[in-house]
């Protein structure tokens, strides 16, 4: 009897564990809207590029399942004619027999991919009522030339462009919140200095070259200030520089610790950053408000690094636990945290995508890393840089 009871308990425990995971999976796929693109027509080489990109975008955005019969159908066609792409797109709610989108687009054939990203986001907006990430841009570091240069690519990894030709080491690129500039650190003149590149013109200027390191430039949500990690006064500390007055304010004072990777809260009232003030070899995340009061945010794991504070008010970071680095998301208000990367490899250096659902991050593959799109709602990670070389430090352009 005892044995039977014991077995039943085990069975009950298993039963309650397994369905819980199933429920999560069912819930995730249940949250997807069915979409049918099979009737969408295409003609001409760039017409096919358009349709392929559109299909891939809608498959990977996380909100749709491509099954038939579907609740929504996308019909229309795309024609590539004498260098001009003409796109006709209707989205129909089959259940209500009503069109939610009916639009014609024209663009240069060379912009087929960009136009597909735009149409994909329009379809997401028409069906879901919020902006998709398909038109997003990413800046990252690649070492394919033998040097660490900045590259940009689309949200799906396509349209790869080399942005710098510094023949040096680039570090920590970040977009300005308005998407007009990229701030990064380069050893261009032999030392780690901070530079700013105007995205439109490619014009570059030096922002900080004080003695020691100049790292991690992060422009505030309002655009008026920039966080930096400088060691000009000794230890690496976090500083804020006002673009208007040029005034530099030191934010941390930790003579026996180093700081790194400051990131702004969405309203600009707080910052999160890395410090090893709790002990060398144990970098953790801390939060500081405008009054200078700081508190420790993370306590689990051997290392907690690379924070990125999203517009959704959640902080993504990487944490070394059990030999692997994994991406975690923490709510700074409730201190609740959860792992969002699979346990098949080390995932590091997250940057929130603009939908607050996805992240770009690195995944270790062999001795290098590649950039992946990671879904916090459970879809499988998607590799964005199947190119040769090692890819790191992705930053998502919020605009």
């Amino acid at each position, binding site marked *: 009897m005892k044995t039977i009871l014991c077995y039943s308990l085990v069975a009950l425990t298993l039963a309650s564990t397994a369905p819980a995971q199933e429920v999560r999976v069912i819930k995730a796929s249940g949250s997807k809207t069915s979409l049918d693109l099979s009737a969408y027509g295409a003609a001409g080489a760039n017409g096919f590029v358009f349709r392929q990109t559109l299909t891939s975008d809608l498959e990977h955005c996380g909100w749709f399942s491509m099954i038939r019969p579907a609740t929504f159908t996308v019909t229309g066609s795309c024609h590539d004619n004498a260098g001009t792409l003409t796109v006709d797109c209707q989205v129909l709610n089959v259940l209500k027999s009503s069109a939610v989108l009916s639009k014609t687009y024209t663009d240069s054939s060379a912009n087929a991919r960009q136009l597909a990203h735009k149409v994909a986001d329009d379809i997401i907006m028409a069906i879901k009522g919020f902006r998709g990430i398909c038109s997003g841009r990413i800046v990252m570091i690649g070492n394919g030339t033998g040097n660490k240069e900045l590259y940009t690519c689309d949200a799906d990894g396509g349209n790869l462009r080399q942005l710098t030709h510094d023949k040096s080491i680039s570090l920590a690129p970040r977009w300005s919140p308005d998407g007009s500039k990229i701030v990064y650190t380069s050893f261009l003149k032999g030392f780690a200095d901070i530079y700013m590149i105007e995205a439109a013109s490619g014009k570059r200027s030096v922002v900080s070259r004080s003695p*020691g390191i100049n790292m991690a430039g992060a422009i505030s949500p309002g655009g008026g200030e920039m966080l930096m990690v400088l*060691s000009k*006064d*000794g230890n690496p500390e976090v500083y804020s520089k006002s673009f208007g007055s040029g005034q*530099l304010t030191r934010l941390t004072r930790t003579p026996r610790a180093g700081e790194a990777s400051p990131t702004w809260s969405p309203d600009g009232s707080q910052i999160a950053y890395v410090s090893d003030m709790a002990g060398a070899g144990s970098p953790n995340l801390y939060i500081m408000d405008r009054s200078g009061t700081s508190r420790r945010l993370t306590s689990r794991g051997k290392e907690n690094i*690379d924070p990125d504070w999203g517009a959704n008010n959640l902080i993504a970071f990487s944490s070394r636990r059990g030999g692997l680095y994994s991406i975690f998301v923490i709510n700074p208000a409730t201190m609740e945290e959860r792992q969002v990367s699979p346990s098949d490899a080390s995932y590091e250096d997250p940057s929130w995508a603009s939908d607050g659902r996805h992240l770009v991050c690195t995944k270790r593959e062999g001795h290098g890393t590649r950039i992946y799109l990671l879904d916090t709602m459970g879809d499988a990670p998607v590799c964005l840089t199947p190119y040769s070389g090692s890819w790191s430090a992705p930053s998502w352009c919020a605009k």
Partner: protein
Amino acid sequence: MNTRFAVSMILVGAMAFSMTGCKGLFGKKKSSEGLTDVSGMTGQGGLDVQNGGTRIGEGVGQVVNAQLSAVQFAFDSALVDDTERAKTEAAASYLKANAGTFVTLEGHCDERGSAEYNMSLGERRAQAVRTYLMNLGIDSTRIQTKSFGFEKPKDPGHDEKAWSINRRVEFVVMK
């Protein structure tokens, strides 16, 4: 005492020369960057205020092979171990015996962890050696720090042995 003062004056002169030399290479001198420091702690760290923030030897210095061994560090540590002190002392002796030279301390880390945190850690390692050199009587104006994080491993391997070789501060002597 007088001799030491004279040496200092020569050094100040040398620095002024380097600053002038710097203008030619990099155009407008950007030593201050228009930054106002409200911390009240200018010049305590990587390089002293005597240089006006300009890097020592920038564009004019020549690297000297001083045959100094790199100081090695424990994992995630920025402390100069007792076993490594002799290397720093050898560097101090060299700098004392060779007036007119200066040293860049290059801090390095192993490949584990974030690029950004390792930049801070490498800098702290360089500054730990800097502090030790200053305690041994080397003038702070002859020392500057630099961090490469994990960007320049000495050993290209990916094991404990390579990692321990790569956690180091190198003495790059210039004149």
